[in-house]
C-alpha cells in the first residue's frame, strides 16, 4: 500500500478538513477506524429517519430555509476527533442546529433550554418508571 496522497497526513491534520477523506486510508488506520467496507445495510433508526426528513425539509428542495452550500459549510467544520467519533446523522443534527441558530430560526438560549428540557423529561420518565 502506498503512502496517503498527502505525506504525513495524520500528523498534519490541520491542513485539511476532517470531511476530506478521499485517499486517506492511512489516516483512518492511524485513528483506529476499521478500513473494511461493511456491506451490511442497517435499517435506519426512527431518530435518524426524522433527522433525515428535517434535513430534506429545510433544504433547497424542501422549504429552502437552509442553502445547500451553507449546509456543506456547517457539516465540514468538525474537528477531526468529532468527525470520526460522531455518527453520520449526529453530525447532520449538529450542523442543522448550528445553521438554525446562525440564520435566527432559534437562538442559542432557546436551543440550550429545549435540550435541557428534553433531558429532564427523559430522566423524569425514568424515575417514574422505577417508582
Amino acid at each position, binding site marked *: 500500500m502506498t503512502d496517503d496522497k498527502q505525506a504525513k497526513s495524520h500528523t498534519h491534520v490541520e491542513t485539511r478538513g476532517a470531511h476530506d477523506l478521499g485517499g486517506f486510508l492511512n489516516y*483512518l488506520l492511524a485513528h483506529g477506524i476499521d*478500513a473494511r467496507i461493511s456491506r451490511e445495510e442497517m435499517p435506519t433508526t426512527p431518530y435518524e429517519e426524522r433527522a433525515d426528513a428535517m434535513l430534506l425539509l429545510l433544504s433547497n428542495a424542501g422549504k429552502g430555509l437552509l442553502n445547500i452550500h451553507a449546509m456543506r459549510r456547517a457539516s465540514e467544520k468538525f474537528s477531526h476527533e468529532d468527525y470520526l467519533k460522531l455518527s453520520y446523522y449526529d453530525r447532520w443534527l449538529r450542523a442543522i442546529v448550528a445553521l438554525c441558530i446562525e440564520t435566527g430560526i432559534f437562538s442559542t438560549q432557546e436551543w440550550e433550554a429545549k*435540550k435541557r428540557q428534553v433531558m429532564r423529561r427523559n430522566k423524569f420518565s425514568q424515575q417514574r418508571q422505577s417508582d
Partner: protein
Amino acid sequence: MANYETNHHTKDADVDNEPLLEGEIWEVALRELLLLKRVITNAELNEQLNRTASQTFAIGASVIAHAWADENFKKSLLSNPKAMIADLGYDVSSMPDLVIVSNTPDIHNVIVCTLCSCYPRYMLGPPPDWYRSAAYRARIVRDPREVLIEFGLEISAETKIRVYDSTADLRYMVLPLCPVSVENMAVADLQVLVTRDSMIGVGAPKSP
C-alpha cells in the same frame, strides 16, 4: 461506522423509558423547536418520511432500461440527462444536476462522494450505509480495483477504472453495460435486470 451498531432503538424516543442517546436528544429537541416555531409541521414531517420510505432505485432502473433498449435514447440521455429523464414522465425539477457516465468494454465507472454523501438520490433512493462510510470514501479513490473485488466485482486488468467524485451540485450515476442476449426484450423486462449497485458502479446487472 463506529457508533452505528449502538443506535438501535425501535420505539419512538418520546415514549421510550430507556435513556436517550445523545443523538436522540438532539433530534427530539430540534424537532420540537422547529414545530414550536412553526418552521415545519407534523404533517410535513410525515409526508417527508413517507416520501423517503417510498424512494427506491426504480427511476434509475427505468432510465437505464430505456437506454439499453434504444440507442438513440441512450445518446440523448448521455448528453442531456435531465431533459431525457423528464421525457419519460419524471418530475426532475428539484433534482441537482446529473451526469450519467457510460461503461464500455474498455472503461468501468464508479461513483463516490469523498467529502460527504452526495448521491443521485432522486434516481437511486437513499444512499446505502457503506456509501457514506469513511472506509469507502477513503479507499475507492485509492485502489478501486481492490475495493471492487471486495464487492464481488472483478474488473479485467485491460479495463480502465474511472472514479467520479460527486459534489453537492453535481451527482453522477453509472450506465452499466447491457447484459448479453437481451435482444428484443421489453423495457419492463430489462428494468428487472438493473441493480442499484450496478448504477453506483460496484456491481453488475443481473443476467436474463
